[in-house]
């Protein structure tokens, strides 16, 4: 699989995300440095040849105004919207999740943490019952350990929308009991779009792909689309 990882002015985790993509590819017997996976500059509009997109974490445009508010207007995001509409897998991590919500590709919004502080910690997530290529290697109810780090990660949706997200099985991850760091509604840590091909989450699976990091539970998300493709 060839991944494109978006890079905005102010992105932070884009190299980490690309690294995770390459590790996942290698674990599936593909990849290598000539795999074709690459960073995508925010002004690029041509995503042809890419099989999956990551909108990475960081502080695009300094997160000024609202996290993700400015980045959503980049030319690359217009291309990502088309890519997603065609069913391509798009993963938004942290700031990337915020960008996808701001641009309407995912439902809901992310508010300042209840305790207003930035928080960085390893935490447990429970896999939701969403149907998404990113979850193909994970079982609903499975517990995984993934770090999170953010200041605006409190998932919010008005009651009707929340009800819709729940009843359509769009919840991809919930914080395990006692692990909700920010006051997210229904402990929601990640959601998908209706079709399931777009998934956003606040925790950082790309920081849980190598042994030395203490957990490799994040690898599954990056392996998911290729495995789902193989099944299809």
């Amino acid at each position: 699989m060839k991944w494109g990882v978006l890079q905005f002015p102010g992105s932070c985790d884009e190299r980490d995300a690309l690294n995770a993509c390459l590790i996942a590819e290698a674990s599936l017997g593909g990849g290598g440095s000539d795999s074709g996976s690459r960073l995508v500059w925010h002004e690029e509009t041509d995503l042809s040849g890419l099989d999956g997109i990551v909108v990475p974490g960081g502080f695009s445009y300094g997160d000024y105004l609202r996290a993700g508010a400015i980045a959503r207007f980049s030319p690359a995001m217009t291309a990502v919207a088309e890519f997603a509409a065609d069913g391509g897998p798009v993963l938004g991590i942290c700031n990337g999740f915020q960008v996808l919500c701001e641009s309407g590709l995912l439902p809901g919004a992310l508010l300042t943490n209840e305790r207003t502080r930035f928080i960085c910690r390893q935490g447990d997530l429970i896999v939701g019952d969403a149907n998404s290529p990113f979850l193909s290697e994970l079982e609903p109810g499975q517990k995984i350990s993934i770090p999170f780090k953010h200041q605006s990660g409190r998932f919010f949706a008005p009651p009707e929308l929340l009800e819709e997200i729940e009843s359509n099985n769009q919840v991809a991850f919930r914080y395990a009991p006692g692990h909700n760091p920010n006051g997210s509604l229904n402990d929601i840590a990640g959601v998908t779009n209706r079709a399931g091909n777009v998934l956003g989450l606040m925790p950082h699976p790309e920081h849980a792909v190598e042994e030395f990091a203490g957990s490799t539970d994040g690898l599954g998300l990056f392996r998911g689309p290729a495995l789902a493709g193989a099944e299809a």
Partner: protein
Amino acid sequence: MIQARVLIRPKEGILDAQGKAVEGALPALGFDGIEHVRVGRIVELRAESADRLEELCEKLLANPLIEDYEIETIAE
């Protein structure tokens, strides 16, 4: 040119973490009798016309899912 001021506030009913933090800090600093603290943003700008300000708010300055906005303009 016009001078515009956009006030952006968290929607009623949404927990305003910053407002709550301010309220929480008041007693220790010796302030009593203050309540309903809400913290929002103010964006001030000069524009050639007021025509597209609404659109600017909807698209960029505010997120209608979580925020209300109000535009005040002064012609110059």
